[in-house]
């Protein structure tokens, strides 16, 4: 019997050390899954695996110890439960995301929604090498945007209006980057120190700090692995979802055009130059 490992791999079947067994990767987005589906997955791990699940480092779920003979059967049962198998190989992988503004007080963007949209648009798309997305709500970066090929991060560029300001000093206290100084009767803002976290906007009791721009910072070219490379942040705030997706489109086209087979995006960027990508992005405007 010949085994088509390639086809199996495209379907998220990760070949195990033990001959004939696979760790079955499932398709999740942003580390969230409906509880009933999770119960079903747990049941199927008892039926086809060893009765345990593996939570991956990128918010995924795998069912280890699925035998080759059971591949078709488990796929069918998963499909019935509305669960798809994941992908591996040189393509867009699981999109990870933090809970974002819906849940986290620090969040500035709806990370789960953006994550779903990225997944819908790009998941499984073939590229020169594997490609990872992360969406995170603020500079705390819980979803590690700098470790991914593309990281999306929420950002607010704040603006101060003295109207109603009580000089209470709270904004200075909450600003981690020391961009705000409150004196007896003035509030000074040093733009160059601001890391766009939005804490001043969220904290000021008088609403003197407002978002001048609310949007996204894009990180490109990050990866971990044997040769880690932190991503570069594009030097501007993207102020609409449409623009965000246009820039992601351009970035993926750039990788397709310049990336060598089995070369991670960060390596392509180092070789070809971030400037060149910036030039392509500027053509959009």
């Amino acid at each position, binding site marked *: 019997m010949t085994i088509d490992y390639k086809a199996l791999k495209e379907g998220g079947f990760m070949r195990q050390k033990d001959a004939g067994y696979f760790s079955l990767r499932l398709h999740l987005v942003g580390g969230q899954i409906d509880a009933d589906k999770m119960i079903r997955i747990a049941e199927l791990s008892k039926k086809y695996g060893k009765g345990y699940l593996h939570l991956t480092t990128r918010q995924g779920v795998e069912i280890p110890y699925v035998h080759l003979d059971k591949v078709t059967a488990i796929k069918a049962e998963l499909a019935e439960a509305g669960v798809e198998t994941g992908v591996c190989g040189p393509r867009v992988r699981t999109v990870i995301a933090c809970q974002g503004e819906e849940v986290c007080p620090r969040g500035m963007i709806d990370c789960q929604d953006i994550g779903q949209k990225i997944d819908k648009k790009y998941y499984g798309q073939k590229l020169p090498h594997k490609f990872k997305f992360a969406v995170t709500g603020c500079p705390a970066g819980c979803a590690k945007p700098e470790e991914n090929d593309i990281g999306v991060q929420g950002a607010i560029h704040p603006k101060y209006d003295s109207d109603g300001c*009580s000089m*209470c*000093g*709270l904004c200075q*206290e*909450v600003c981690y980057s020391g961009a705000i100084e409150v004196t007896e009767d003035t509030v000074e803002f040093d733009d160059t120190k601001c890391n766009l976290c939005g804490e001043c906007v*969220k904290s000021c*009791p008088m609403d003197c700090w407002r978002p001048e721009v609310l949007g996204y910072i894009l990180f490109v070219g990050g990866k971990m692995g044997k040769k880690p490379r932190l991503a570069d942040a594009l030097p501007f705030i993207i102020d609409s979802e449409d623009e965000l997706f246009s820039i992601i489109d351009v970035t993926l086209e750039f990788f397709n055009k310049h990336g060598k087979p089995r070369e991670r995006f960060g390596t392509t960027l180092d070789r070809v130059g971030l400037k060149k990508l910036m030039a392509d992005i500027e053509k959009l405007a």
Partner: protein
Amino acid sequence: MSEEFAIDKKIDITKDVCPFTFVKVKIALDGMENGQFLEVDLNKGEAMKNVPRSIKDEGHKILKINDKGDGVFSVIVKKK
């Protein structure tokens, strides 16, 4: 400067850690009437970064923050 407001209740959360800091504020506010004033003493740092913000998120009004020195601030809150 707290004498500007007729404080109805005072609490001190300088010895507490997150999340008890905010929980204590919440319990204090829950036991008050709308429009009453609460004075909260809290520490600079973590509490100052998080508690006033959570009070705002719950819809109450922070009227004043006074620096009492030694890393302690007092926050005057009006229950919504």
